[in-house]
């Protein structure tokens, strides 16, 4: 089933000859419960993508430990699915083949896998596009196909690296609701990296705030809404209070008022 994430004192230092080493992450610890949805926000270059890549096994640690489902992460795991900033579809494959690519790579293409991808494509509104090529689809549709590719693997851990950053505001909002609905069905452990504070608050059960380099966690906020999120969630006064509070970490002058505003939420 779905897996919990345990990050203990993770440290990532990039060192190249002739260049002073940069510390991307330092002494970072984070827990994500199995089936949970945690959003991570932070300024550019705070190491949040490095954290995600480390959890996914694409980036080695120089210190500390990361465990997924109890096992120490030593490299990419088949049970972990990624979504990147770009859809990253392969232009020489049609949408169906793109979504089936992980199974072909793993040599685990079964009829169940096919039918799961077919029903996922239906659910995200791409049923009629399975034989189209990526360049015939809009950016939002491509990103939806990328969701299908990730979820088709029936992953135990879903790692999302600013997946909607390149979309226009309206498409992005729709994708947020789609993602929430999908997560509610699959209840897969999900970590979302994002630049957008409203997106983080809308989707996460928890929002983790990271500071600038070296990346550390400065706040970890429980979001007081149920698992189902919709447009009404954004209308809730607590929503804007939390957003303002988080924003306070990035806009210095608003710090005090944001801290005060959140006091209401926490009471």
């Amino acid at each position: 089933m779905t897996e919990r994430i345990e990050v203990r004192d993770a440290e990532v230092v990039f060192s190249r000859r002739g260049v002073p080493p940069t510390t991307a992450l330092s002494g970072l610890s984070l827990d994500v419960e199995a089936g949970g949805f945690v959003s991570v926000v932070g300024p550019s270059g705070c190491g949040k993508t490095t954290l995600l890549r480390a959890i996914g096994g694409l980036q080695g640690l120089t210190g500390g430990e990361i465990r997924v489902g109890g096992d120490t992460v030593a490299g990419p795991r088949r049970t972990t699915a990624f979504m990147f900033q770009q859809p990253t579809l392969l232009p020489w494959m049609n949408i169906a083949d793109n979504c089936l690519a992980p199974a072909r790579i793993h040599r685990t293409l079964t009829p169940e896998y096919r039918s799961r991808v077919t029903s996922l494509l239906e659910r995200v509104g791409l049923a009629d596009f399975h034989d189209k090529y990526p360049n015939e689809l809009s950016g939002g549709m491509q990103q939806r196909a990328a969701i299908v590719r990730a979820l088709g693997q029936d992953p135990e851990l879903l790692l999302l690296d600013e997946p909607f950053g390149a979309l226009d505001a309206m498409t992005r909002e729709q994708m947020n609701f789609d993602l929430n609905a999908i997560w509610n069905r699959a209840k897969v452990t999900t970590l979302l990296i994002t630049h957008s504070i409203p997106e983080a608050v809308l989707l996460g059960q928890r929002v983790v705030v990271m500071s600038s380099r070296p990346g550390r966690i400065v706040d970890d906020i429980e979001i007081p809404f149920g698992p189902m999120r919709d447009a009404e969630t954004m209308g809730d006064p607590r929503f804007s209070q939390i957003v303002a509070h988080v924003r306070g970490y990035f806009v210095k002058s608003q710090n005090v008022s944001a801290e005060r505003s959140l006091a209401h939420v926490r009471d």
Partner: protein
Amino acid sequence: MSATEKIEVRAPQVDRAPAQRGPSKVGAGLRGRGLAVGAVMVFIVAWEMVPRLLDVQSFIFPRLSEVIAKLTDATTVTLLYQHAQVTLYEALVGLVIGIVAGVGLGFALAEWEPARAAVYPFIVAFQSMPKVALAPLFIIWFGFGYTPKVLVVVMLVFFPMLVNTMNGILSTDKSRLDLFRSMSASKWQIWSRLLLPSALPSIFAGLEVSVVNSFIGAITGEFVGADAGLGVLLQQFKNNYDTAGVFAILVILAFIGVALNQIVRIARRRLVFWQ
């Protein structure tokens, strides 16, 4: 047109390529083709009439009709056919060897950084050198047969193929590499399913250059020293002041060039259909 027919117009999904083939594009294409045909007609008429009007002597600049006479004369055609076979053979053999070696080594150098670091200075040196200058050396080493010409062709094909393959692989989208790594793809799967298709557009760009280069190589090799081939025939015609014959060879070379270029373009459209 009845209503049912109208519905059927959009029902079959034929267009697989980017769906930008509106009627306006077709119109523009037709107009473009019309202009091209017109330009060719003007060219033909000018080739026939201008030497006549300026009273240029035939051995300086033959009229089109004289060149056509050469191309339809039985003895000349047999001669052209025999020598063209030789040149075609040299160019195609060199082309195949150059492509296989260039693509193969391009892959190896892209994947193995120490080798790239070691070999790169040589590549740069060779790239900036006019490689046909090696032809006399090859003649000294290998005589007047096919080998030196094939080698000149290989030199001219190998480097563009090598550099384009290598650059194509090295410019593979990093996030696609991440995707394949995240799926725990094997080295072989990354090569065959990601790096090769990613490099294909660049490989084809190299191929278009190489096809042209292969004939430059074969003809140059024949100029330097040979007993058969269109390059040899060209020089014989020149020595006899048979300028119409020289033009006949140039026309044949142009046709071969266009034909090979078209083959490469068709193959590219088939294999790199997503671009």
